[in-house]
């Protein structure tokens, strides 16, 4: 039925396009993840406040959760970008040789900046909800115990709530970061040259649709797997796991099992 011709892919220009695609996907992810995290902490903190701040946070959360990411990207690209001050737009339109990654991937372009911003804001809202869930999963008795010891509200947050919230929420948070990476594929619709865009370019260049999309699929799967493993390894470990026990072995004055 099919005759696969992979040669069309590991020769130039297809190979160059694919490489640029991978670099772009990774660059967008690496840029958006920290930005999303910072925004998420701000939103989560506002959510815990009272009055106008809390309702603003809730409004933002509901707005970004109930509209498609694609629509948000189109908005930022067509409406948001157009509303920027002229001097900013001119600066972005200039060529910036210092901000170009190896196979010719420019970072200071409207497409890249809009993609990073749009993805970060969208993901931040979901991250904030996961943080909130993680916080409320901490048994209320521990909060009482901390208050009874004389800790202030901020201290309770710092020493009791947040450490456990991150422990509880790390898996879902990693899930959201992986989502961000996969959703970067939507930026192809505003012209960002990431993996999906390049796969389509190859397809329209030599009509090798199946091969191009097969490679694209495998690339996303591999990046997803690697990213997931890395983030889990970097994140907080469950108390009582082997890594932490080793780090605290020096505390045990006398011998004896931890159990």
């Amino acid at each position, binding site marked *: 039925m099919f005759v696969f011709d992979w040669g069309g892919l590991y020769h130039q220009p297809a190979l160059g396009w694919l490489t640029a695609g991978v670099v772009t996907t990774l660059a967008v992810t690496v840029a958006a993840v920290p930005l999303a995290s910072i925004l998420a902490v701000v939103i989560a903190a506002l959510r815990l406040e009272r009055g106008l701040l809390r309702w603003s946070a809730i409004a933002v959360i509901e707005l970004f959760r109930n509209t498609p990411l694609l629509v948000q990207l189109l908005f930022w690209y067509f409406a948001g970008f157009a509303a920027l001050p002229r001097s900013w737009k001119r600066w972005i339109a200039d060529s910036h040789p210092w901000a170009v990654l190896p196979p010719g991937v420019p970072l200071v372009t409207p497409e890249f900046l809009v993609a990073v911003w749009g993805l970060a804001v969208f993901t931040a809202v979901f991250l904030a909800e996961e943080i909130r869930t993680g916080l409320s999963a901490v048994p209320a008795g521990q909060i*009482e115990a901390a*208050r009874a010891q004389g*800790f202030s509200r901020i201290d309770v947050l710092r020493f009791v709530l947040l450490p*456990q919230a991150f422990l509880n929420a790390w898996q879902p948070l990693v899930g959201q970061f992986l989502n961000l990476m996969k959703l970067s594929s939507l930026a192809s619709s505003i012209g960002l040259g990431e993996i999906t865009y390049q796969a389509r370019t190859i397809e329209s260049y030599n009509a090798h649709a199946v091969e191009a999309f097969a490679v694209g699929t495998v690339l996303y799967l591999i990046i997803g797997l690697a990213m997931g493993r890395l983030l889990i390894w970097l994140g907080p470990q469950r*108390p009582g796991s082997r890594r932490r026990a080793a780090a605290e072995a020096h505390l045990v*004055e*006398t011998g*004896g099992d931890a159990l």
Partner: protein
Amino acid sequence: MVPVENAAPKIEFRGVAKRHGAVQAIRGVDLTIRSGEVVVICGPSGSGKSTLIRLINGLETISDGEILVDGALVSSLRGKALRSLRTRIGFVFQQFNLYAHLTAEENVSLALRRITGLTPAAARDRALGLLDRVGLADKPASFPHQLSGGQQQRVAIARALAMNPDILLFDEPTSALDPEMIGEVLGVMREVARSGITMIVVTHEMGFARQLADRIVFLDEGRVLEEASPEQFFSAPVHERTRRFLSQIRSPLHTTDG
């Protein structure tokens, strides 16, 4: 147990009342607890026993009346003053409420490091000493989920003792424990009671009360119905309701005719 007849009043309740919405949890309680006293508060469920001690360190706020500690009014304290008071009062919860993400040693030393400001080494030393005192010298690196209920409660007692409080409050410390672990916790409480610290214990454990209490306070429907020394309380209770409560404690399968 220290002779307390002439000791200064440590905690005073004056006309204290507490409302939860439409429900009156505490009605007009007047009570004085002397320095170094061990007082056991008992009563049927819903009588307001837990609420009463939670009012002392502000975990609940009073609706009426005053509470004084060392002669100073504490019932209206807020913010920094309240936190300062709380560092002088140790509280042991029915559900232990240990910090799940910290080891036993860290549970005990956290406040020492973050409130008292001890160096990590000094805090750790004090924590290990306290864990030894409650019989858990071999478990400093264990997490709460790795410990039995009795062990967790003993860590909780060590944590309550960490800041050298002059008042210790116990809210039904053994009610959530399996029977075979009650003894180890009561043993620790016995040792603490003999150290001269002012202790208020809400409990159903009448054996403990008989052995160690200087006074037993019987609370019923938010009021102090009876208070007496253990000998008098167990042998000659004055009120009918007290008698009924005591007989139910002694023989739980016994039905109506008390």
